[in-house]
């Protein structure tokens, strides 16, 4: 019955009204001394149990992506699942827009928090269209409004509704499933999204595409997002803020990516982010951020658009074995000369501006 294509009329009007719901607000998120301990059979607390979390405190402002990153067993997923209370904390408070999630009705709480997991967890017995509309159906939207919302979100994540809405999940590729998973989590316009390794199950090329697309989407949606990954590069790319967790669920460092790369708080963090953290910092900056030198004879030099990441620019210069490349401005006119030296000196400057990333 969901097969009926939307026609003009009431359903069309509904699309108009739901459009505004795509961007209605984000919530702030705060962890206050949150711990999760897992007792042994005898009731004694086992120190260092995988998944345990130890006295976490940090704040995520509304509209920011906060990435939880750390080695396996460090409690990332536990931390995430305590927000929608799939796991109950042993101590501490989690505040959503200043309200302790423990004081809310658990079902109502979960329905206004988007939830995306690595395995996606699409319902195999429902069509893509109905999968996306699962939460709207739970909270009692009309069928027409569910359908309109579902089509709107499929378009938003780049899946043509006409082609996809009547398919079953088994008829999708891994990347398409992840998109449907994101669309489903956005359906009831949640002020907070929890994403547990959402892109880890797809191949590296598809993953990069999904990450870029999601960042583009987030620019428009500006949701608050708690994002779990074990991949440092993904954390640096996706995070406005990064919480590095160490074994035992301790918060090893919390801050913007550039700060974590430039000033790791401990040997653990330095080792975890890797010896190439200098290069990683270059991927936070683009050619547009660079102070350039006057151009001399420019024949045959590589050119860089303003959006080119410095890490890529450096790599191109090293491979091409030239003295420099030409930085272009937005209009494609030469702006100045980029050399290995000016790329290196960029890291000495002030921290990367998160707004100019991508």
């Amino acid at each position: 019955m969901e097969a009926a294509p939307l026609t003009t009329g009431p359903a069309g009007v509904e699309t108009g009204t739901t459009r505004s719901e795509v961007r209605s607000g984000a919530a702030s998120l705060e962890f206050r001394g949150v711990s999760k301990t897992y007792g042994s059979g005898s009731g004694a607390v086992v120190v260092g149990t995988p998944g345990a979390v130890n006295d976490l405190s940090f704040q995520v402002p509304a509209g920011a992506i906060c990435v939880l990153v750390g080695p396996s067993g460090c409690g990332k997923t536990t931390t995430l699942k305590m927000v929608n209370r799939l796991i109950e904390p042993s101590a501490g408070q989690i505040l959503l827009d200043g309200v302790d999630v423990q004081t809310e009705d658990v079902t109502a709480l979960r329905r206004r928090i988007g939830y995306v997991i690595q395995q996606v967890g699409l319902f195999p017995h429902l069509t893509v269209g109905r999968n996306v509309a699962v939460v709207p159906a739970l909270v009692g939207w009309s069928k027409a409004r569910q359908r309109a919302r579902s089509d709107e979100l499929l378009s938003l994540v780049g899946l043509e509704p006409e082609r996809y809405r009547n398919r079953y999940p088994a008829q999708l590729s891994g990347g398409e499933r992840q998109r449907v998973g994101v669309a489903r989590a956005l359906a009831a316009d949640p002020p907070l999204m929890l994403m547990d390794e959402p892109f880890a199950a797809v191949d590296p090329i598809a993953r990069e595409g999904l990450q870029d697309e999601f960042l583009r989407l987030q620019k428009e949606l500006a949701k608050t997002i708690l994002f779990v990954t074990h991949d440092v590069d993904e954390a640096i790319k996706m995070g406005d803020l990064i919480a590095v967790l160490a074994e035992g669920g301790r918060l090893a460092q919390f801050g913007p990516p550039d700060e974590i790369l430039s000033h790791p708080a401990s040997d653990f963090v330095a080792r975890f982010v890797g010896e190439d953290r200098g290069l990683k910092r270059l991927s936070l900056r683009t050619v547009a951020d660079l102070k350039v030198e006057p151009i001399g004879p420019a024949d045959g030099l590589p050119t860089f658009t303003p959006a080119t990441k410095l890490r890529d620019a450096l790599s191109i210069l090293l491979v091409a074995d030239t003295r420099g490349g030409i930085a272009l401005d937005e209009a494609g006119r030469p702006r100045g000369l980029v050399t290995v030296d000016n790329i290196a000196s960029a890291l000495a400057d002030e921290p990367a501006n998160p707004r100019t990333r991508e």
Partner: protein
Amino acid sequence: MSSEPLVRWDWLAAHLGPIAGRIEQHLYLTLIAVSVGFAISFLLATVAIRRRRLYPLIVVVTTGVYTIPSFALFAALIVFSGPSVLSAEVPLIMYTLVLFVPNIVAGFDAVPWDVLDSADGMGYTPGQRWWHVELPLAIPLVVAGLRLATVSTIGLVTITSILGDSLGGLGYYILDGYHRTFTTEILVGGLLSIGLAVLADLGLVLLQRVLTPWTTAREAVR
């Protein structure tokens, strides 16, 4: 006797009415056994899923029942409840349990954990999760159990003929033909019973297709 043909068509033509009546009885006995057996099994399976420790016990009991020869069980029940529908149904029902319970449990076990995790995470109440997610996804294996139990019960109903002429469905003809060394009756009872089992099985396959369209959609990938 040696001049008797394998099938006496004139006998067949003269008995179409009674044969139809026996088919009806056969289906009726099967339907009761399968429905009641399914209800009891669903309960037992639900207990087994909630209390995993009890599952081995349930398996031992239902399998134990299955080892009792049906012939002996029907004969024993005549002592208690006479040649009644009850005497026919109790063993038939008991024999379905061993076919139903493991399939129902496996059906619910087969629901992927990530599907359950996301259902919980999106705010399904336990009841909504069971009805809208677990039950539909368990259907393929539950129907597999239903097919086994139905086919097996249609075969077993013929043995209830030993309870008396008023029971047995098509088994009445098999037993009567045996006593009278009348192959026409044996063939009519046996072949029609097989026919019923095949038709019922096909019907259940179709039912499953209708109930679970997603299981056949796979081939339609662009």
